[in-house]
């Protein structure tokens, strides 16, 4: 009994801990995720009851066997037949009910027609490219791995892939949708509360599928507008001599061939846009917190941290590393 209680406590502790996870379907904060959570809990409860009933019947059937009986009469077989038929009918009713509940949930999660903001997501091996297009091309900007959205507003996310199949999944906000090369999928998300919502690629996409996280940061409209304005601006020029030396280094070394920093000569399109990389919370698609130290570690040896990813290990001296990391950090 004590062991049983301990197990129950242990499991409950884990469950409760999980409910607070930032990437949990049970920690629903988006409109869609909340509806999904209700459906999930409903179906799980119904199925648990069914399983419990079957177990009760099984246990009773085994316990009954203690009293020896003769082989079953045709009357008892007929009675059993009626019970089995009733059970099958009950199964049909339950299945139909669950199917209908699922249909209603699907209808409720339809695409929203009045999404004012559209963000294009391009999946890359192994990072997320977010393109905020505007009718005025001067106002369009790109960022990587961290998406900001205003709360309480439907956001239309357009999903494309540039290489293999990925899957956009932020469980606290909505269910997942695949990014498939050759087609465009659309999903609507809406955060009801400000917060940082973590997501992860949910379709196996190669060596670093495990390290392809994304963050959706929901903030109130004013804060979002401020963020967007800052992102639209060209890169910040820092007066710090180390950062200036780092910038010159960035242009001279292979960095500028793959990365873009708007407002400088760097206009590579293979790697993530680094114009405001200093303002992000994490780097390398959620692998490391964004600090100067982790920036330096990442630049020094990306292949040990994320083996197989497409950023090469560029040989740099320790001075060069310090200058580059200062420059990266300054790009707020």
């Amino acid at each position, binding site marked *: 009994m004590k062991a049983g209680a301990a197990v129950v406590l242990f499991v409950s502790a884990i469950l409760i801990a*999980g409910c607070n996870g930032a990437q949990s379907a*049970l920690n629903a904060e988006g409109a869609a995720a909340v509806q999904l959570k209700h459906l999930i809990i409903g*179906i799980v409860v119904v199925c648990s009851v069914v399983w419990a009933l079957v177990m009760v019947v099984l246990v009773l059937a085994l316990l009954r066997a203690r009293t020896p009986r003769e082989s079953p009469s045709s009357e008892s077989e007929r009675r059993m037949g009626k019970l089995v038929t009733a059970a099958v009918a009950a199964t049909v009713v339950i299945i139909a009910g669950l199917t209908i509940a699922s249909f209603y949930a699907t209808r409720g999660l339809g695409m929203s027609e009045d999404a004012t903001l559209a963000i294009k997501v391009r999946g890359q091996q192994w990072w997320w490219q977010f393109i905020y297009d505007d009718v005025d091309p001067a106002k369009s900007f790109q960022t990587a791995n961290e998406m900001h959205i205003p709360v309480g507003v439907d956001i239309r996310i357009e999903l494309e892939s540039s290489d*293999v199949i990925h899957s956009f999944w932020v*469980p606290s906000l909505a269910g997942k949708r695949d990014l498939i090369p050759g*087609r465009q999928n659309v999903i609507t998300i809406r955060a009801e509360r400000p917060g940082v919502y973590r997501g992860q690629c949910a379709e*196996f996409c190669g060596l670093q599928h*495990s390290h392809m996280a994304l963050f959706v940061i929901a903030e109130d409209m004013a804060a979002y507008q401020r963020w967007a304005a800052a992102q639209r601006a060209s890169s910040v020029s820092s007066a710090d001599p180390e950062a200036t030396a780092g910038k010159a280094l960035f242009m001279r070394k292979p960095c500028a061939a793959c990365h873009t920093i708007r407002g400088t000569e760097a206009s590579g399109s293979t790697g993530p846009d680094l114009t405001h990389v200093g303002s992000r919370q994490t780097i390398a698609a959620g692998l490391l917190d964004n600090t100067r130290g982790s920036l330096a570690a990442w630049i020094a040896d990306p292949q040990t941290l994320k083996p197989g990813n497409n950023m090469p290990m560029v040989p740099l001296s320790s001075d060069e590393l310090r200058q580059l990391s200062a420059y990266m950090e300054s790009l707020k």
Partner: protein
Amino acid sequence: MTNDNKPAQPTDLMFGDDELERRLAQTWRTPAGVWGALTTVDHKIIGRRYIVTAFVFLALGGLLALAMRLQLAQPEARFIGPDRYNQIFTMHGSNMMFLFAVPVMEAMAVYLVPLMVGTRNIAFPRLNAFSYWIYLAGGLLLWISFALDTAPDVGWFAYVPLSGPQYGAGKRADLWAQMITFTEVAALAVAVEIVVTVFKQRAPGMSLDRIPLFVWSMLVTAFLVIMAMPAIMLASSTLILDRLVGTHFYNPTEGGDALLWQHLFWFFGHPEVYIIFLPAVGMVSTIIATFSRRPVFGYLPLVMALIATGLLAFGLWVHHMFVVGLPKLGESFFTASSMAIAIPAGIQIFCWLATLWGGQPVLKTPMLFVLGFIVTFVIGGLTGVMVASVPFDTQVHDTYFVVAHFHYVLVGGAVFPLLGAIYYWFPKISGRMMSETLGRWAFALIFAGFNLTFFPMHILGLEGMPRRIYTYQPEMPWAGMNMFVSFSALILSLGFLVFFVDVIRSTRSGQIAGENPWGASTLEWATSSPPPCFNFRRIPVVGARDPLWSQPEELTVAGGLRTDRRELIVSSVVEAQPEASESSPRNSIWPLLAALATTVMLIWSIFSPWAVIWGSIPIGITLTGWFWPKQTPEDES
């Protein structure tokens, strides 16, 4: 059969029991030694070989799983790098699905179906031998590639474009695709044999409504194999064409479609899991009947449920594609059909419960595994109902929730009955009983270890842990539960170790079993343990379901088959009226040679398309040798 004018044709009517046995053994025997082993067409020897090989693959796949659990026990662990880990989980899935689950069920059928329907050998015995060699070649291909560090690393379902020419570097995905060809040819061969054996070689009087439920389940499974395997063969062949020759089946810019792969694969992939599950259903029905000391309740509903499951299985495949962005109406149809398949499954569960209720259950090891099956499979089936719902699936697809679901239905729904079946039929196959004590230990460890390993995965999935990741971040709340799961996996492995130890020990020193140690009712228990090479001294005549319970003293038998050449009875499809005596091929080396030629051609074609042309020549030669009349006595038949 009644040639009164021809003198001195030895038939089984002429001899007493001992003399008959001597003559039949002479005609049907497999010679000793290596040559006999390579040329045998005896379904029992081939079936035993198949089962042992499949269990070797199970053990290897289990080791892969332990490696994965070692890596995942801690966040950002460094035991296995991403490349190796991707190979390991691809190998684990491909091995378990293609090299263990389907072959072992077919192997049980190869051994048991001819005995259960009361015939001397399976239909097309040389094709049976060929099938085993091809299967072995495919398994070796895959495992040797793993040992050489070129195992496929694209997941067991190898989605394009990841497995396509641009992103799947090297020959890895080609090796995977060709392994599929090997194993599917083997599976198709066995399926065809089973259909013909069940329809045309049944003992006289065994009409369709008197066939044992295991035979019914294998018949339905065989039809599923025949209908579903072509889809995967097409898919894997077009993948090789894309990669080797430069076609554009899956290239969106040139008119192909990445989703075409998914449709083709899952059109096979969903029936595949029923190919694995339905034989287990047959095993459960058999074991429950024997150990409840009564015939199974609801024979007709159970048969109808089998057929309904088989038909419905072809209408579910899109539920694997609920998140790719298909039209909502289409997705909803597949939700309805995926939920609907729970109804035949429910019918089966209720009939089995009714059998237990109305019987006197004897809790020997096979029955323990069947009880474990009911507990675990119902959980798996119910989580299946959960993932059948499109909105539910958008949160749990490609997470550990789905991993938990399919292990519950595959291990709970197929492996538990299989283990029970091994305990049940081991006395028949080897002549010795397995240990009841070790059996109980194996069951307890496997049942507890399995549930402790896989139940927490439901929670991990809901907490956001995706599938096929080689590691995860320390800040995610998954580390504790992953460590718990990894330890529980050790308990599960220990249970399997006990099982394997029991098998090996019992082979050498188990208690000698008689003809029918369990007091069962089907025909395979009417002959010695292990059965002689000719299966039955005289072909039994069946008058009811459960022949050994309806005629407990002595079975009626039919006579008139020749003893100087290999003959068996061919009977009508529905009523099993004897129609003719048909000859059965003798031992032959040509199946092995044909398998070797096919292996060479298929492996060569991974590297060059010309292999299909030049490699077909040896195949043609060996097939000619196969079918060339051999001047054996069977030719006159």
